[in-house]
Each structure stands twice: as structure tokens, then as C-alpha cells.
């Protein structure tokens, strides 16, 4: 074997200091790490390594224009994300990235833009929203639809409130269930789609959330008249190496870590609906 051509070097993480940990919900936190995102584009992810525990693929969730820090929003669901969620400022963490594809912001310019985020799926969309707001004039109407399980499980609540107050963004928030003190909408996020005030044929849509939610969002968007080629989703699979080498994240012929995570909906539509249980 030829050691010089060994892709193993690509697995080595750099060490980064944790600057801040902000609690988003009961099980989700946003971690700020020192050092920039190495020019990441919104939609990409990094491999975050908890020493001695393991690695997890985590989307960038912060401002793509910040060169001094990166942010990752992590939901505690396993050993690695649990260890990341338990970090305190001053701790260190392993990091390598950026990996994968980004949202088609360039392609969306000059048209209407619809962003649909469900649950933790809002995290990979946040850098796209921040990029759009930094260059708001490049887009026509911009609508952001946010769904969550309950009001307390909404991410970035302060920022959501700021976005909702703006006159150049249509921001709608809905939850699946709420107590009577909730003043927003109740219902699934897909039901907000028929009410969008956009020109469908000139609309690009970026959708991220659970697969079922993405599938129904795509259906509603197409029913509204948005061409399927203008629909983009972020597919989540078990990304372990991030360089299309380990095989874990395959979805049909697609290596989700490499050809995704952001893919045209047409690329995965047939694969997302296969019974796997």
C-alpha cells in the first residue's frame, strides 16, 4: 500500500476552545468555538470530536461572515452529542471541516426564496438566513417558515422575534401543540406553504427537517407551483467520515456527506420514500 496516498490524514481533527454554550431548549444547545469556519458555506457541516468518545456530524448554524468563531447547534441524542452538549467555556473539542454541499443561495438570487425549517432543521438554515439578510437586496420576497414541537422547543427564539419584526421578511412560526398562552399558529409547518405570497415559478425553496416533513413540504411547494428542480433539501444520514470513504451515509448511490447534505429534491425523492423498517 502506498502510505503517501493514504486518505487517513483527512481524519485528524484540530483542537478548538469552547467560548460559549447557549442553551436553546431542554435538550439542545448552541456551542461557540474559537477559530473561523474555514470559509464554510451555509448548509455545510463539520465533524465535531469529543475526546475519547467519538465524532458527530454537526451543521454550521452561525454567521458565515464571522471569521473568528463558528457556531454549532447540537441536540443531545447520543454519547457524542451528549458530550458536546455538556461542554463548558474553556473546554476543548476536536473539529474538522467544512464538509458537504451548501444551500443554493447563488442560484436563488433575483427570485423569491422560501426557507422551511422543522425542529433542529432550522439550525443548518440559520447561516443561509443570515447570509440572505446581509445581502437582502439580492432577493425578492423572502419567507421563512418555522415548525417545532412545542413553543419551548423553538430554536433561536430571540432572533426569531427580531426576524419577525422585520418588514423585509415574512416569518411564520407554528408548533404542533401548545398551551393556550401561545399566540402563534398551531399545526404542522407544511400547512403554512399554501399561504405563501411568492411567485412560484421564480421561487427557490430550501427545506430542512425530518424526512417526512421535507417530503410533505416538497409536495405542498409543488402544489403551489414551485418547480421541483427549484426544491432543495438537506438529507441526514449517519455521516461518520465526511469524505465519502466509510460508506455509512449512503442513500442509494448518494454519499450524503459528499454529494449532500444539501441536494436537489429530485435527486432523493424516490429514495426517501422506500420502506426500510
Amino acid at each position: 500500500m502506498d502510505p503517501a496516498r493514504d486518505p487517513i490524514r483527512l481524519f485528524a481533527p484540530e483542537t478548538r476552545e469552547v467560548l460559549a454554550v447557549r442553551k436553546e431548549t431542554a435538550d439542545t444547545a448552541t456551542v461557540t468555538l474559537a477559530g473561523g469556519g474555514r470559509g464554510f458555506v451555509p448548509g455545510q457541516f463539520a465533524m465535531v470530536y469529543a475526546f475519547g468518545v467519538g465524532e458527530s456530524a454537526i451543521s454550521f448554524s452561525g454567521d458565515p461572515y464571522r471569521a473568528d468563531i463558528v457556531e454549532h447547534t447540537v441536540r443531545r441524542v447520543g454519547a457524542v452529542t451528549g458530550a458536546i452538549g455538556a461542554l463548558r467555556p474553556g473546554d476543548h473539542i476536536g473539529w474538522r471541516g467544512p464538509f458537504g454541499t451548501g444551500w443554493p443561495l447563488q442560484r436563488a438570487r433575483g427570485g423569491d426564496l422560501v426557507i422551511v425549517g422543522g425542529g433542529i432543521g432550522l439550525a443548518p438554515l440559520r447561516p443561509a438566513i443570515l447570509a440572505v439578510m446581509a445581502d437582502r437586496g439580492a432577493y425578492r420576497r423572502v419567507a421563512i417558515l418555522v415548525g417545532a414541537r412545542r413553543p419551548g422547543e423553538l430554536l433561536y427564539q430571540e432572533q426569531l422575534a427580531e426576524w419577525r419584526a422585520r418588514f423585509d421578511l415574512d416569518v411564520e412560526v407554528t408548533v404542533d401543540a401548545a398551551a393556550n398562552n401561545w399566540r402563534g399558529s398551531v399545526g404542522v409547518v407544511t400547512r403554512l406553504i399554501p399561504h405563501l405570497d411568492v411567485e412560484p415559478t421564480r421561487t427557490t425553496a430550501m427545506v430542512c427537517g425530518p424526512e417526512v416533513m421535507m417530503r410533505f413540504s416538497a409536495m405542498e411547494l409543488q402544489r403551489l407551483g414551485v418547480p421541483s428542480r427549484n426544491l432543495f433539501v438537506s438529507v441526514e444520514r449517519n455521516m461518520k467520515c465526511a469524505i465519502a470513504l466509510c460508506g455509512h451515509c449512503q442513500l442509494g448511490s448518494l454519499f450524503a456527506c459528499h454529494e449532500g447534505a444539501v441536494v436537489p429534491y429530485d435527486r432523493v425523492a424516490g429514495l426517501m420514500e422506500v420502506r426500510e423498517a
Partner: protein
Amino acid sequence: MSENKLRNHRCARDLDSSSLTIMESCSLGEVSWKKGDWILTTDDLATRCYLLTSGDVQIETTPPGRKETLLQTIHGGDVLGWSWLIPPYRWAFDARAASDVTAVALDAAKLREAADADPRFGYALTKKMFFLVADRLQATRLQLMDLYGPRA
């Protein structure tokens, strides 16, 4: 004015002209509610069908001994109420204006009569209501799936 609102409503947009004319003949004109007003309440006779033109409406219920439960929010462009089509024509839930709301009200009895008299209109109307129910059912199923919850 209300005729235009009816014609432009999502629900009426692709109706043929004779069906549209019949629907207009069932119109009771524009109605509006202030935020917080009750629009309809459980078990009352369902005498009207509302084509919401603006604002948000909260569909909710308050089971005995429990706090009110928010079920679903519907918006301008949606249709409020289908109990008027199904005997015994009584509302199954409560609806309250979650913001200032405007709507075109249709006379339910007239709609039913017209549908019986003209099956062509009846089919068009039933299809509209079927889409509406299917849409709500699908949304309810997605809600039931607890998509964002921890995986079982």
C-alpha cells in the same frame, strides 16, 4: 366588493362560472371579527361556511375538567367549517379569532339545497370540501407523528 373577495378566494378560484354564480347566490356577504372573538362554538348549529379572507383562526376545544387545547390554526385563504355539510349540522369544535379576521360567509342551507338541485355544482362543492378535509386530515396525521420528538 364581497363578490370579488369570493371570486378571488383560493377555494373559488378554479370553479366553473355557473358553479361560481351559484356560490355567489349563497353568499351572506363579508363578516369580520376582532382578535379574541368567538367565531363558532361546539354543538351550535352549523348554519354558515366561512371563506377566510384575512387573519388567523384558532380551532380549539375545552374538554370538561381540562384547559382549552389548541388544535390547529387556519389562515386567510382557508375555509372554516365543514360540519354544515354533515348531519346533524352542528359544530364539532370551537373557533376563535387569533387576530383580526375577515371572511365571506355562505349560507349553509342554501349551499346544500343548491347542491341537491344541481349535482354538477354539488360535485364541485363536495370536491372542494373533500380536499379541505383531506388537507386537514393529512396535517393532523403529521401532527400525530410527533415528527420533531425523540425517536422511539
